[in-house]
């Protein structure tokens, strides 16, 4: 391809929603995700976070990787790849999965959509085609298609999302249950909606061919105006997902295929994702290694912490005593949570020390002065933020 634009191949790809998003990106704050230009935030990350929690917001997930996997052996192929038993997954349902190397180290997590008896969509954070091809070797007649660049996707999250979709006239949207997929007439085409998201709140993900993306955006924003719609970026997502207890690559885990150092990646048990590992399945990648990991107990366990005070424990070391003489782990993500009104964090803690005292040594800065304090932590088993409205069908109408 010849083009007049200098370094054309090196430039970031623009999502089909880009024109509208650029107009709203008051701070011109862009980052990159899988080669796409992608908003860190649009105006103010905290403001966007509050929109997600109190009204509604859109988050561009076009850069997320999307693969259609279709064919007679599609289910068998995916089922051998992921740790969960997806033969139990019903049509038009979505499930959260992770997949591992044969050493049981986690490669990535993502979601599987069962679109038909022999048709699935896998979504994940990082490009995975090479791995999928490897996983597909030996299975006949499974077609894997990367639709990342052609299927536009928008995450639409927050308590007023349902009202917006309802007002758009999407018939039957009130019946859509969490993790269910529905199809709706929209602008003469089909709009696929899944009741999924990464915020732990009421929310949907909207899937449409690129050509209709802007029309979808315009409709949402026209109707959404009365419902406080606002685009949000990576920063607000990161806050919401931490409250919901979701893990993030390069914060909670390292993708095993990209890790250089031995065991600088994690097993699902270390990430507290043991519930995703189904040993009733006779075979899946990493099964033998994970059986051993389960038997011996993971060295570390990802733990949700409620920390005294209000200073976020970002980057803190975790100790087993107040004197900080026994180091037992490290914080992976931390924030002051406005929704829960608590100082929350996720931390990797040596499993053997989970039952003793837990202290975080927190460094913080006030007007160029450095301070530190040692704060008591308590373990939270449940997600910090899990409102009942997230699970109600039909959802509340505003």
């Amino acid at each position, binding site marked *: 391809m010849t083009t007049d634009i200098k370094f054309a191949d090196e430039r970031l790809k623009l999502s089909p929603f880009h024109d509208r998003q650029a107009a709203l990106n008051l701070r011109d704050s862009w980052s990159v995700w899988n080669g796409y230009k992608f908003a860190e935030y649009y105006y103010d990350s905290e403001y966007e976070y509050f929109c997600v929690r109190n009204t509604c917001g859109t988050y561009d997930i076009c850069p997320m990787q999307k693969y259609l996997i279709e064919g007679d052996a599609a289910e068998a192929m995916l089922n051998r790849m992921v740790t969960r038993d997806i033969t139990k997954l019903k049509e038009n349902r979505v499930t959260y999965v992770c997949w591992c190397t044969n050493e049981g180290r986690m490669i990535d997590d993502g979601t599987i959509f069962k679109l038909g008896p022999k048709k699935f969509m896998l979504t994940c954070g990082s490009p995975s085609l090479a791995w999928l091809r490897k996983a597909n*070797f*030996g299975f006949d007649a499974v077609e894997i298609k990367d639709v990342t660049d052609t299927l536009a996707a928008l995450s639409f999250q927050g308590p007023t999302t349902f009202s917006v979709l309802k007002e758009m006239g999407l018939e039957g949207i009130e019946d859509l249950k969490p993790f269910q997929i529905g199809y709706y007439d929209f602008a003469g085409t089909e709009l696929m909606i899944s009741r999924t998201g990464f915020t732990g709140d009421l929310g949907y993900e909207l899937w449409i061919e690129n050509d209709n993306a802007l029309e979808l955006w315009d409709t949402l924003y026209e109707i959404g105006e009365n419902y406080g719609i606002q685009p949000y970026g990576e920063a607000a997502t990161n806050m919401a997902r931490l409250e919901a207890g979701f893990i993030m690559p390069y914060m909670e885990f390292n993708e095993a295929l990209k890790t250089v150092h031995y065991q600088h990646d994690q097993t699902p048990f270390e990430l507290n994702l043991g519930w995703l590992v189904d040993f009733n399945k*006779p*075979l899946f990648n990493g099964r*033998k290694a994970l059986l051993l990991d389960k038997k011996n107990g993971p060295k570390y366990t990802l733990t949700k912490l409620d920390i005294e005070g209000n200073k976020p424990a970002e980057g803190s070391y975790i100790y087993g005593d107040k004197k900080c003489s026994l180091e037992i782990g490290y914080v992976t993500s931390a924030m002051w949570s406005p929704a829960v009104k608590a100082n929350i964090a996720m931390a990797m803690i040596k499993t053997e020390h989970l039952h003793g005292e837990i202290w975080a040594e927190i460094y913080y800065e006030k007007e160029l002065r450095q301070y530190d304090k040692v704060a008591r932590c308590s373990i939270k088993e449940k997600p910090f933020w899990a409102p009942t409205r997230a699970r109600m069908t039909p959802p509340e109408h505003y």
Partner: protein
Amino acid sequence: MQHFDTIIIGGGHNGLVCANYLGKAGQKVLLIEASKKLGGLAATREFYPGFRASVAHAINQFPEKIVLDLNLTKFGYKQSSRSMKNIGLDLEGNHVFVTQDGLSGVSDKEVRQYDLYIASLKRFAKALQPFWMKKMPAISGNTIAEILTFIQIGLKLKLLGKKDMRELLRVVSLPARDLMDENFDSDLLKATLSWDALVGSTQAPRSPNNSILTLLYRMAGNHHGHYMLPEGGVQSLIDALTDAAKSVGVEIRCDSPVKKISIKADKNGVKAEGVILDGGEEIRGDRVISALDPKQTFINLVGAEHLEIEFLNRINRLRTDGYVAKLHLALSDIPSFTGIETLDDRFIIAPTMDTIEFAWDDAKYGQCPENPVIEIVIPSLNNPALSPEGGHVLSANIMYIPYRKKGGWSEESKAHLVKKLLNTLNQYSPGLSEKVIHAELLTPVDLEKDWRVTGGHWHHTELALDQMLMMRPTYEAAQYQTPVDDLYICGAGCHPGGGLMGAAGFNAAKVILT
């Protein structure tokens, strides 16, 4: 449904050896073979009415231990005390003769140098002896026995002394060309001596890797690398192994291709519980051993859904393309070679190492060589039953004939190659063409089709450093066990590799019995 202690798939010599040891230990064993005859690549079959031949046409490393353990002499196996000469043929009749006792047909200087050369290779071969008839230690998580193997190997090498050990470590990965150039002057001699370092591999004289190690591997036998034919030929080895197996109660079923290994998959994982034949019949056993090549075993018979992703991809990436074709000639009369008196030897047509190298150059780009290099045996001399009265069989290995020929193999391209081969042979054996009643050419593709060996490869999978020892065929299956519980492998694709040696079958049986 019938039930066995062990079901062995594949009645090649390795499957037979394994069956013998297990049967001898009291197991109820079933050996299942796809074709009508046992022996696999060593099976003797009719290729033209009245004329018979086996793909593997001579023996050089079948271990004395197995002969004794299985009492094969009692079952008619008579090893010959006479080893075949390797004769490098020369168009002018100035042939080079390599015998167990030394060289002739070359200068005195070369004769003396050869004595030094072969003496050191024999020392090396001896030091490597413990490698072959032993399970290789795994790369981690070793048992005491495995650690002892490491120690034993280390000790053997140490006993060589510093000088020899350094030299061994230097030469094992040396291109054959360098070793020959260091030692000898005669082109024909160099080409003849490098033949057994190269045949069956994707290596040529200038390829670095493990050709010298392969040569040393082939020197493991009684005749230090020289081939011999037992009374009754290769067939007698297969017959003896078969009768011995029957005598210890091994049940044998031929003409019964296995379609799938049946796998019990439940919350305890995956385990082999029997086999399903082409016709759908199912047979159960406590364990299954496959003597097939690793790709056949894992990709076709087990299947992707029962194996982890990386393992299966490693199996798939094994290099299995064969480069040796087999030519069988049904002759109306005994052939003659200019300047050769006795014919029950092994003849090599490869005038220089460059001829070998250029043949490989052609083959690696998918062409048949302009000047093919050839190894010839006339097995009907040793075993007259192979041909009708007065007739003879000429059996030849042709290098390098690509599995992936550009444009693929067809009857025309085969006929074209046969013509070229006969032309070459005629130059050394004038009048040969007139004696040819029938010529059968088996390309690697034919070997794959009719003998069910992926790529038609001599060793089932290339015997190269990355696919050797504890890496053969790949880790997680290099100790004869496999990631599938109760499934074992014992074919040439296992350590120590192919050739009529039976060591893989022997080692696998030992793993199962201890």
